[in-house]
């Protein structure tokens, strides 16, 4: 009898895990719109990784709501760059507003949002965290590097939103995850 009870407990634990951290990822579809929250050059790295995964994205650093037309997946690369914001000639507040509007519009249109954070510790802190928070809260799925999530910043967002999070050691580890999500061979 005790053994049966143990099995039942283990079964409940497994069901619990499946419903939270280990649930199946959603499937994502092309066309993809790729944008940056904070204007870091991590968007360029992501574009190359997407190509290596066989995924073509429309890359628009300062994407607006109109760019969502016919899009099925929105990918936001989070992390602030003072040089990038300067290069794009946009300030922090306007950039945050742009991302909020874009994420809200994507939600209304049932466009799936994948938020990436691949810049590690350097893309965290005073400048980056507001972008990470806004882009993280907009996400249906998160992929982040471990060094950028040492304090559990993204894990907490994922838990609060009850969405899946993939922690990777470095950005190239994202390629097999992306091929799986987009069902590429």
């Amino acid at each position, binding site marked *: 009898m005790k053994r049966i009870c143990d099995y039942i407990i283990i079964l409940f634990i497994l069901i619990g895990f499946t419903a939270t951290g280990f649930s199946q990822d959603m499937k994502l579809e092309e066309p993809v719109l790729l944008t940056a929250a904070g204007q870091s050059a991590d968007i360029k*790295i992501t574009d190359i990784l997407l190509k290596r995964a066989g995924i073509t994205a429309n890359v628009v650093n300062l994407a607006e709501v109109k760019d969502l037309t016919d899009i099925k997946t929105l990918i936001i690369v989070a992390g602030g760059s*003072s040089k*990038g914001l300067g*290069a794009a000639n946009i300030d922090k507040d306007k950039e945050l507003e742009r991302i909020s509007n874009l994420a809200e519009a994507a939600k209304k249109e049932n466009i799936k949002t994948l938020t990436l954070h691949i810049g*590690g*510790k350097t893309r965290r802190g005073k400048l980056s965290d507001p972008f990470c928070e806004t882009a993280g809260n907009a996400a249906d799925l998160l992929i982040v590097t471990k060094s950028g999530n040492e304090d559990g910043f993204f894990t907490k967002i994922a838990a609060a939103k009850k969405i899946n999070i993939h922690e990777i050691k470095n950005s190239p580890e994202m390629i097999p995850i992306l091929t799986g999500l987009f069902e590429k061979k």
Partner: protein
Amino acid sequence: MSKDQIFRNCLFIVLTIIICIYSFAKFGEMEEEYPIYPGENVEIVRLSNYFDGIKGTNADTDVYIYGGQEDGGSALILGGTHPNEPAGFITAVLLIERLKVNKGRVIIIPRANNSGFTCTDPQEGVPQEFRIETSDGIRKFRHGSRFMNILDQWPDPEVYLHYPSGQKLSGNERRNLNRSYPGKPDGVLTEKLAHAIVQLINTERIDISIDLHEASLEYPVIDAIVAHERSMDVAAMAQIDLQILGIDYNLEPSPVNFRGFSHREWGDYTETMPFLIESANPIQGRMRGETTEELLLKGYDKYYAEASELGLLYTPYPAEGIPLEVRTGRHLEAIKILISTFSLLNPEKEIGFSDLPSYSEIIENKLGYYLKTGR
């Protein structure tokens, strides 16, 4: 005035004179240039060959040209733009002493701001030199100033107006080589130096140019490759390959609206593909404690360790610090991968080279193992 007072006054004057003589002699020592021992098949020319406006000045400097047997592309590597950033200088020295080029050309300027090697930054208390143990004795290297020596370009204006943009910066930035590009042939000495480097890039038709730097750990652009928009594809691919090797670099775009930088103006005023590389150097930061040769070499500072725990830094700060080996190894690996990636994407301009140690080899064997002894 009593005899006692006269004696004290005389003693004070004598001590002052002794301190002045000692300081003057120490400052004068900075004029001595420690040798670099180039490898084989190198042509050494002066930068003034490309613009004679710097001939006979402290801005003129040696240019080391390595050419391969086969035709190919050409790369320029600059160390010592800021002589208080030793990893950039030592990486250039190591290249000069080890590099073998079999295809194309690699041109190296180790003391880009030669004048800055003849002084240190006032009130920073930094060492004037540092020593590296080689297999056959100690070698000395200069540690200098971020700026050109004020004796070579004086006085500083209240406000520095960058040419040709008119951008305003604080007055001392007029002596900062990396705020002076594209330079000005009839400008102040730093502008002339910048112009000479741009002339070299144009004359030698340099395809890929890499400017080596370091930065303090509380500066957001750290452990980074800064790339002009023309360089972005190569930089992004190189960054991914570096990550696969376990070397994390951030990629930063060169701002269009901040002028005077190598990564901006080289791209706008020449055909080259420019990159700037930063490593993390605790001796440059404001949070540092005792400023010693040991800090420069070992890169460990207890206050930075504390700052790291408090989350105040933009880069990981390992318990053992960030020694010069790590910073130089990172630079060297980034150079190799940037040039290889460029060659992969531009096979008609391939640059082939060999005999450079890997990042892990430099960490394992230490820097001195790869530097020549001079004997």
